[in-house]
């Protein structure tokens, strides 16, 4: 099963819709509860990173019986130092974004923690490509 979503920068009204639809789809196909929880965290954090920091982006999802693959591509400022951005607590979110409850600096660390495989490529001034894989481990509880 494949899905694709467009994400608009600064559109906080629609932000999170893609992640919610991904969750519903995973529940429908009977993915493990743990897989769904991790995928929702990865998808939502990645989606909000595009909304907060980029001009626009797309999120593609490929659901296989043993894994979920997410690819998020955005057009935006890019990430100058990926290892720094992966540090817990580091955030470049401006004050008005922090007032909304964002900018804790946990987005990429949460994505990394919840992914079994993670690749991030970025070019300053162009944008970022994030690829995450969440394995559907057989010992996770089935979604009921």
């Amino acid at each position, binding site marked *: 099963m494949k899905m694709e979503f467009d994400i608009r920068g600064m559109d*906080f009204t629609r932000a999170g819709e893609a*992640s919610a639809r991904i969750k519903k789809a995973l529940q429908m196909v009977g993915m493990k509860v743990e897989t769904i929880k991790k995928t929702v965290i990865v998808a939502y954090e990645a989606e909000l990173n595009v909304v907060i920091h980029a001009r626009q982006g797309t999120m593609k999802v490929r659901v296989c019986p043993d894994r979920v693959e997410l690819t998020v591509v955005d057009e935006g400022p890019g990430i100058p130092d990926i290892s720094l951005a992966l540090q817990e607590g580091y955030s470049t979110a401006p004050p008005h974004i922090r007032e909304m409850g964002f900018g804790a600096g946990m987005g990429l660390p949460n994505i990394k923690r919840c992914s079994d495989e993670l690749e991030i490529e970025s070019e300053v001034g162009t944008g970022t490509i994030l690829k995450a894989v969440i394995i559907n481990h057989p010992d996770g509880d089935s979604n009921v």
Partner: protein
Amino acid sequence: MLDIDINSGFGCDLISDSLCFSRPGCLLLTGLTNIQIIRVADMIEARAILFVRGKRPGDDIIRLAEEKSLPLLVCKRFLFESCGLLYQHGLRSC
């Protein structure tokens, strides 16, 4: 809509922490009133949201909560006291 069972409480003003550390069936206590808290509450399968510090969400947020069948509550107390009172009355952490 209020005749529901809550299994735990989670008090937080950070979206990421609410997403990662809460659990389905909880009561989410927060001072965040933007639309994203409704989306997150829906995704984590919270049973209700209690807005503290007298914060009231706007009509568009209330409408989205209605669509999601998510009860919204308000109290004047601060987050710490609200959590403490509920804990004293038997509500436990996520």
